[in-house]
């Protein structure tokens, strides 16, 4: 892995790991037994990793979520599905490569999967528009999700976008309408929908495929009303305050469980999903199967009622105001 992909806050850990590598090499070359020393250093490194990862700051989680080596939607699909066929196009205007979808089987269970797709290197990333979808991407996703409903397949939506693309074509073709329509229609789809934020959960662009019966986040991901950089720039005219904004915005999985915005956190391997694709995919797959099985037990009406209530109850309103209303009722009594 290229040096420049290293996470800054892992520096002490990476240095330690380099030392271990050096020492191992040295031992082998000189035929000196340093097994004990190396073992001790490795224990140290593990402890250090645990330490770093147990008290990650929101901006550090953001860095992991954005890491170029992080598994993408297609990586997860390939590791999770026994068979998968990507399907293209919105049957209207185009095929958006930043938001992909298709049909496949997970342990013989047919599913429809949609998700934002980022590239790994520059060329691929340009093709994928850095995971920033256009309206035709959201419309393709909706087409595939409606088809899932027709064929009674559960839907899995993997969210990984800095946001919907802000460009002329996107505006001309109704970016706002496409996202709004998707949220509205996803509310009514008569099959289970599971949403998982696997990297970046960037605002409306994320929410455009983000309405479901379950909304999960991988451990080192974020989901935010706007990027901390933009938030800092707008509020404090200072994008260097992004770290402060990252904290203020409560965008981590843990924060969002507390706020009732998401249902659960899916663990990642030590050091983040990009350290072990297979293990990450296994953890995701396990959760998906477990939840789909639960959801499939529900009657359609119950499924939809629960989904509605899930989003209906989100938000906080000042207690006094509500009490004031209560008081007026008491006054009547």
């Amino acid at each position: 892995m290229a040096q420049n992909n290293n996470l800054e806050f892992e520096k002490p850990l990476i240095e330690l790991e380099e030392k271990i590598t050096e020492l191992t090499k040295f031992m082998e070359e000189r035929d000196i037994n340093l097994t004990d020393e190396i073992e001790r250093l490795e224990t140290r490194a593990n402890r250090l990793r645990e330490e770093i990862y147990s008290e990650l700051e929101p901006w550090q989680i953001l860095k992991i979520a954005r890491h170029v080596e992080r598994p993408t939607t297609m990586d997860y699909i390939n590791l999770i599905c026994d068979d998968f066929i990507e399907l293209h196009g919105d049957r209207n205007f185009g095929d958006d490569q930043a938001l992909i979808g298709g049909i496949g089987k997970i342990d013989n269970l047919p599913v429809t999967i949609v998700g934002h797709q980022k590239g790994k290197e520059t060329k691929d990333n340009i093709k994928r528009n850095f995971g920033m979808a256009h309206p035709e991407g959201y419309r393709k996703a909706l087409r595939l999700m409606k088809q899932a409903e027709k064929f009674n397949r559960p839907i899995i939506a993997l969210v990984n976008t800095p946001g919907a693309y802000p460009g002329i074509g996107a505006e001309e073709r109704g970016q706002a309408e496409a996202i709004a329509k998707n949220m509205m229609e996803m509310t009514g789809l008569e099959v289970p929908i599971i949403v998982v934020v696997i990297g970046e959960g960037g605002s409306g662009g994320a929410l455009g495929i983000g309405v479901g019966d379950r909304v999960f986040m991988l451990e080192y991901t974020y989901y935010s009303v706007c990027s901390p950089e933009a938030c800092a720039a707008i509020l404090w005219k200072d994008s260097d305050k992004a770290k402060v904004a990252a904290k203020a915005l409560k965008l981590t999985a843990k924060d969002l469980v507390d706020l009732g915005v998401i249902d659960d956190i899916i663990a990642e391997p030590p050091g983040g999903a990009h350290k072990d694709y297979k293990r990450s995919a296994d953890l995701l797959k396990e959760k998906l199967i477990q939840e789909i099985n639960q959801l499939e037990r529900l009657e359609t009406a119950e499924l939809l009622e629960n989904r509605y209530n899930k989003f209906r109850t989100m938000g906080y309103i000042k207690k006094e105001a509500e009490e004031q209303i209560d008081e007026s009722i008491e006054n009547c009594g």
Partner: protein
Amino acid sequence: MLKDLFGGKSKYVTVERKKRSEEKGNEHKEDSDKKEMPDDLWTKCKSCKQIIFNKKLAKSLKICPECGSYFRLTAAERLSLLVDDEKFEEYDADLQAENPLDFPDYEQKIDKYQEQTGLKEAVITGIGEMNGWQVSLAVIDSRFLMGSMNSVVGEKVTRAIERALEKELPLVIVSGGGGGARMYEGMLSLMQMAKTSAALKRLDQAGGLFISVLTDPTYGGISASFASLGDVNLAEPQAKIGFAGPRVIKQTINRDLPEGFQTAEFLLEHGMIDKVVERADLKDVIARIIDIHKLRGGENNGTE
């Protein structure tokens, strides 16, 4: 008649609001009206730079008599324009924001805008009559934190939608907030997009009529949720409407934006808007649409 709606003092204060008496602040209201239309006699048009007497401006429904530019209306002014005299009952007027994220300075902001506008939050909702038709209404006020959507705005709009559903009334939402989802409530603001859209799905499935009125400016979390989801989407001339703000787009694509980009007329041309309607015609057009819808299936709530 429409010409008389805007006096030096907003006609809005004569519109009956439920729980209106419970509020501290009719004075606040007056204050804010003064800020919107200062006691000094004139306003400078941002577009043609002409100086216009406020009385004249009020008579022209806050449309520049020189160049035809539309000035923004407050929610109160909008209601005066749309609702039959004295025929508006406000709901949920007392709902106020929390600071669920403990976001720095959020409470102070709320206090400031409450003070400035006389409103508790960025939307007024209720039931009003339009040419005799009973309608569930929600009107965003762009002065209150840019008319951005937080938990309270989402909740009030959702209740207005549910009210339309429950009472079988047409729903009219006038969107004119620039700020999208309100940052200070983080993801809770964003989730109001899903919440309002979900409520609209229910209304849709029940066969309810939703007329969305897009006014200047409608962006972000508001354009990307209820504002775009009308059975009929109307827009005021020149209104700026879009998903991403022009500055962000310019930065992203690194070139100038085309003339007329993100205006109501641009959206009409690109198929997103059913009709661009002059401010003076808005009430009648809405009433006519309701009339065409209500004669069959639903009961005729109107007096004409």
